[in-house]
């Protein structure tokens, strides 16, 4: 476990040093945080400290950036991320009913992870799949033309995997 973590930190540092030769190298902070989240699943205080040292940027600034953008998670996530699109088209077509049904089914509210550690529920801004509204994205996969019932059935499939 520790070893795996060290390996990830090493990869992150290599990624950071790839920007060293570029002009305005500090401006790549957001790219680095993307990489960190890809490696660790979320951005912890430890990761921020490492980035701070490697990029010579105060941790406070990194904290400011990481908390500003919705894309960055500051706590660990469940195995699957369930993003219910709350874009206009989806909303008009009943996305609120889907999110309520999922909340009740998983017994969690938005931003929380189910007790079995399988699902983290999120509201998404707009997934750009308005033609399929209402949509839910589970990890990278989009499910369109949903109803509350269908959404729950899809979650069941993930549970049984």
């Amino acid at each position, binding site marked *: 476990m520790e070893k795996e973590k060290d390996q990830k930190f090493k990869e992150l540092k290599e990624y950071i040093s790839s920007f060293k030769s570029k002009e305005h190298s500090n401006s790549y902070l957001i790219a680095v945080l993307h990489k960190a989240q890809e490696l660790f699943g979320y951005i912890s205080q430890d990761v921020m400290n490492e980035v701070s040292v490697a990029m010579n940027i105060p941790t406070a600034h990194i904290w400011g950036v990481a908390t*500003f953008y*919705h*894309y960055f998670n500051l706590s660990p996530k469940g195995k699957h991320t369930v993003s219910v699109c709350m874009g206009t*088209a989806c909303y*008009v077509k009943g996305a609120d009913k889907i999110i309520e049904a999922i909340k009740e089914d998983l017994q969690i509210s938005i931003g929380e992870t189910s007790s079995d550690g399988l699902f983290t529920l999120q509201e998404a801004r707009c997934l750009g799949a308005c033609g399929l509204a209402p949509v839910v994205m589970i990890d*990278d996969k989009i499910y369109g033309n949903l109803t509350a019932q269908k959404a729950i059935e899809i979650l069941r499939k993930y549970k049984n995997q």
Partner: protein
Amino acid sequence: MSEKKLHNRSFEVFGKSKFFASQLRIALRNCGYIDPENLDDYLNVRGFEALAKVLTGMKSEDVIAEIKKAGLRGRGGAGFGSGLKWELVAREKSDQKYVICNADEGDPGAFMDRSIIEGDPFTVLEGMAIAGYAVGSDKGIVYIRAEYPLAITRLEKAIDAARKANLLGNNILGSKFSFDIEIRLGAGAFVCGEETALMQSIEGHRGMPRPRPPYPSASGLFCKPTLINNVETWANVPVIIVEGSQWFASVGTEKSKGTKVFALAGKITNTGLVEVPMGTTLRHVIFDIGGGIPKGKNLKAVQTGGPSGGCIPVELIDTPIDYDSLAKVGSIMGSGGMIVIDEDSCMVNIAKYFLEFTQSESCGKCTPCREGTKRMLEILTRITEGQGKEGDIEKLERLGNTIKKASLCGLGQSAPNPVLSTIRYFRNEYEDHIKNKKCTAGACSKMIRFEINDKCIGCGACYETCKFDAIEMI
């Protein structure tokens, strides 16, 4: 339509179905027609011909004059004259200038930028390179949402392929002009679509806007002169150069030239991207192209411009779609989201939805936007929960007008639009909510009341099944 023209090849693929027949595809001309990952495919549809034409026979002033004559206006929403913007950047003297493509498409319900990049990434690169030549810049940056992984991959592949073919990089096509493009990812902040916030984000900071002037054309990214345009605007550039400004200016209305892509969604039969000449009426788009409202329902309103736009009622459905006409009816062109709303939707609830969005996306830098949108949302929430008070509508109007005038950036300046426009056209719905505690559309669930009438025989079935013990036996 002549074979040689760049636009409207889509007919060859999709046929002249009703959905496509009255569309004119300029920005979307290659989407679905070429393989977006194949440079040869793009070259085959006269791709990079515009860049070659510019590099071999046009001075930078000529390019700018051509864009100006075409009357191209920014497709990101505000509709600022592109030619003028280019000229301002070209006039600046600096060792470094930047050209930025704004692909931070955050409006919920709009997905044309994503489609253009996914379907025709090379055209964006070509447009940017032409601008780079015109304004004297050698560095382009595409700022794109991290939520669009396929678009990012295709863009990366396109940049690689263009570099290999010497269409990007040093001494493009053997000329003295060098230009390279880099991709920067956003991280899910709506306000980063605002140009000054976007540049803050590229610099690695919190994406907060700053007061203008200085405008980006004078002091933008890393305090250097910067030209920033939206994806759809870039996609129009090569067509203007190849087909000529005269042809481009012949499409559209007097003040709004060319076409606009709309993302048709909501309660409509045919959803999807629609590109029509400016000046087309909303009616034509919704009923002829969109196929009308499903399930025999009636149209109530059209929402254009996303959270910064407004709701246009069914009575005004013959409004032509152009920058000025939409502004006149209290909405905006915006990036081109078009949400069709039928009689089942409550306008107060829709206004609340948009305000919830802008309120949570407010960056918090300026007070009118941070505090004002919050208070407006509180009032709206109260109204939709049946707690509305006399005078709430006037309070919303006053707050809304103040926020519009006093906010720092476009987000705040336009955040009250959905509320103000629904008050303007659907005041009776607000009054119904406040005075009669009634939501006619039945969308505000907290206002739904049940009553047991005289037909009740006291069978107790409702008492038995009620999950919430809401029925009491006395």
